[in-house]
Each structure stands twice: as C-alpha cells, then as structure tokens.
C-alpha cells in the first residue's frame, strides 16, 4: 500500500514537472511569435529630418553624436509592415499608409536615434511620445488621441506638442524668434525653460483657470479673469502659445 502511494506521488511529480517544461516551451514559443523586431540604420546628414507616423505604441527619439539614423521597432502581433523611405534628406516612416486596409495591427514601439541637429516630426494615433537631446529646426510631437508627450533637453526654433488626453512636459531652451505651441484637452502641461528666456506668452486654461507662471510671473503678464494669461518676458522675441482646455499649465524655471 505504502509502495503504491509512493509510486503514485512519484508519477504525479514527474507529470507536473513534464507539464511545467511543456508550458515553459510553449509560452516561450508564443512569445517569440508575438514579438517581432525591426532594425535598420541609415546614413544621414547633420540636419536630417525624421518624419514618423505611428498607429499605436510608444515612440522614443534620442539625439546622438553620429551622422546616422538608427531605427529599432518592437512589434506586437499581428506585426505591422514597416517600409521606411529615405528621400532627399528626410527619413519617412508611415505606418498608417504602410498598413492601410489591415484590420488588426499590433502596437509598434520605436526607439530611434538621430543626429543632434535633426528635425523631428512624429505623430501617433495613440501612445506616448518621447524626444530628447535634439537641437534641430523643428520638434513636433502630435498624438491624435491619448498619450503623454515628453520633450527633454530640446533646443529647437519651432516646437509643437499636441494631444487630447495626457500630460505634456517640455524641458528646453527658447530660441529668439522661435515658435512654441503646446495644446491639450485634458492633462497637465509643464514647461521648464531658462529664466532669461525672452518670449511673448498666450496661456489659456479656461476650465480650470490653473495657470502657474512661477518665477516668470512679472508685471508684464496680464491675468484678466484667470482663464487666459497674456504677456511678455524679456524683449518678447519668441512666441509661446499654450492651451489646455481642461487641465493645468505650469512654468518651471530651468
């Protein structure tokens, strides 16, 4: 009887072990088939322009000290088609066009490295956008629906960030006669800029009336009824326009 019980437990242990091994291999195999990678490198001039339109997923763009663009994409199943085009100084990736007519396309998460002085124009239908260490002529980040936009260490003449639901964070310099536009429907917009920046400001937060200028509050700023702040810092050579329909706007000294 004892021997039979021993045999039964040994058999049960072996079965559990075998099932575990099988489960591990199956899940690994499924994982491999669910995630596909894409990697490509393009030689690029210093002032190359990156134009990316993603469907869903996170996009991260980083500036680096090389004259080439490195694109890495991690695709969830069903994997998207990616066909980057290199046309006269512009690297164009358009996942909306490349996958038009496909019912199901998984998230695509990009990690792209560009020369420091590149112009970056990225958009996605949904997902986060991160851009850092870029000092080209343009940085534009557009999310059609929801996702956070984080722009760090940016030194560009023209910056635009737009989303519907999500936070926007900008950390960078304000170039004289530059143009900076930040628009959200619901989320927090935080701008971290040097104190000696010179700009004209139109900041509008009509619903919350939560506009905090921090150290930039001066006698040249008119608060009106609190829904909009109009004013100037320094000689006002650049233009900053911030609109947040149902969220807050904050300025932080860099």
């Amino acid at each position: 009887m004892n021997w039979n019980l021993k045999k039964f437990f040994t058999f049960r242990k072996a079965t559990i072990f075998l099932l575990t091994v099988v489960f591990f291999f199956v899940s690994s195999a499924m994982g491999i088939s669910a995630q596909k990678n894409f990697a490509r490198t393009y030689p690029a001039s210093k002032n190359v322009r990156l134009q990316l339109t993603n469907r869903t997923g996170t996009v991260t763009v980083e500036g680096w000290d090389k004259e080439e663009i490195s694109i890495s994409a991690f695709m969830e199943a069903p994997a998207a088609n990616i066909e980057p085009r290199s046309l006269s100084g512009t690297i164009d990736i358009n996942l909306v066009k490349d996958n038009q007519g496909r019912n199901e396309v998984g998230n695509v998460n990009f990690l792209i490295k560009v020369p420091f002085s590149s112009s970056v124009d990225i958009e996605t239908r949904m997902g986060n956008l991160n851009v850092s260490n870029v000092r080209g002529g343009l940085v534009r980040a557009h999310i059609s629906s929801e996702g956070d936009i984080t722009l760090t260490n940016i030194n560009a003449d023209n910056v635009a960030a737009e989303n519907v639901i999500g936070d926007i964070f900008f950390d960078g310099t304000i170039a004289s006669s530059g143009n900076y536009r930040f628009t959200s429907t619901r989320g927090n917009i935080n701008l971290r800029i040097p104190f000696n920046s010179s700009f004209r400001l139109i900041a509008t937060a009509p619903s919350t009336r939560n506009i905090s200028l921090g150290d930039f509050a001066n006698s040249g700023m008119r608060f009106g009824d609190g829904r909009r702040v109009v004013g100037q810092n320094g000689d006002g050579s650049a233009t900053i326009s911030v609109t947040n329909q149902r969220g807050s706007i904050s300025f932080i000294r860099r």
Partner: protein
Amino acid sequence: MNCEQCQELISVYLDNELESQVSSDIQTHLAVCESCAKVCEDFAMILDFCNLDETDYSLPPNSKALWCRINNLIETEIAAETPQENREEKVKRNWQFSFSQVFASILGIALASSLLTIVGIKNFSAPGDVSVNASPSVFERVLGKIGIIETPQQTRENRIKEQQAAIDYWNKRVEAKRRNWNNYLREAFDRNLNEIDQVVFEYNRILQENPQDDLSGEMLDSALNEKMELLREFAEL
C-alpha cells in the same frame, strides 16, 4: 619771323594764298622750328581729311529709306498726340462737378472705406489673437443689426455650421471603419471623442448664457477643430 607770327600764317600758307616772300620766310622758320613744324603738320592733316569725298563716310547705305522711316515716325507721333489732347479736354470737362456732387462722393468714399476696414478686421483677425474679449463697438453692432456686416455671433454660427458639416462627413467615414478596429482602439477613440464632446457642450452652454464671450467662442472653435482632426486621423486607419 618768330613762332607766333608763323603759326598765325600757317593756315593761309597751306592754302597757298601768301606772297612768295612771306611763304619763303615761313618755310625757313618751319625748317628750324620743330614746334611750328608740328603745328603745320597737324593743320595739313586736318585739311587733307576735310578735302576727302564726304559721301564716302557720312551717308548711311540707304539714306533715302532712312529718311522715309524718320518721316513716318514723326508723322505717327504727331497723329497720336492730337486724340490724346482731345481726350484730356473731354476728361477735364467730365471732372467738373458741382459742390453737392463732390460732397456726396467724399461721404460715400469715407463710408465705404470704413465698412471695408471693419469687415477686413473682422474677417482676418486670427482666432489666436492676443486680444482678450474684444467685443464689437456700438457702430459695428448697429451695422450688424441692419445686416450690413456679420455680427460675431453670426460669423461664429456660420463657422460652426461648416465645422459640423466636416465632422458629419468624417464621422460617417469613422463609422464605416471602426468595426474593424480592436476593442482597445475603439475604447480609446470613444474616450477621447467623449472628452472633446464634453468641452464642446461646456462652451456651447457658456455661449448660450453669454454670447459675447469671445474666449469661449475661440475655445469652442478650437475644440471643434480637434474633434474634426481626431475623426479624420482615425478615419485613415
């Protein structure tokens, strides 16, 4: 003979019009005086050139044709001047207005230019204008009420109609496409559309209470644009 006397007589000497004695004196002086010899040489060259046949170099190849062309040109110009003078006279006569006509014209021009300026400012002022709550002047309101210019409310209503038409179009496109989206995308789209709709509702309510609130009008315009953009971009999927 000195140089001065010689140079005075050189021209006559070259024409062979001097007495033989004087002519001989000049020849002697020219032989010993280099400067007077040079002057005599120059005079002689000029005389030689003037004695050449003039027709060889002064007339163009077809001088008669040239004169004909010049004549025609002069006649044409004379003919053109005469009707222009008549026209100027007519214009002068036409521009002789009475005082009342001049006064009425000035008044008309002033009124027209004021209206054009107002309409221009209204039409071309950007939505992101720095001015806050720039309400219309009394004059503009009066003009708006008598229907000469659009009131800001009418302009806003027309703009909303246009935006709504575009929204309806893109909405139909989205409705056709959204059944192919996965649940995750559909839910996110609905959530964001709902967020914008709430904003639109909010500003519509404010504007019903206070139609003069330009900032709310501007925000409504912006929200409707965002809605249009959201629909258009998702219709591409």
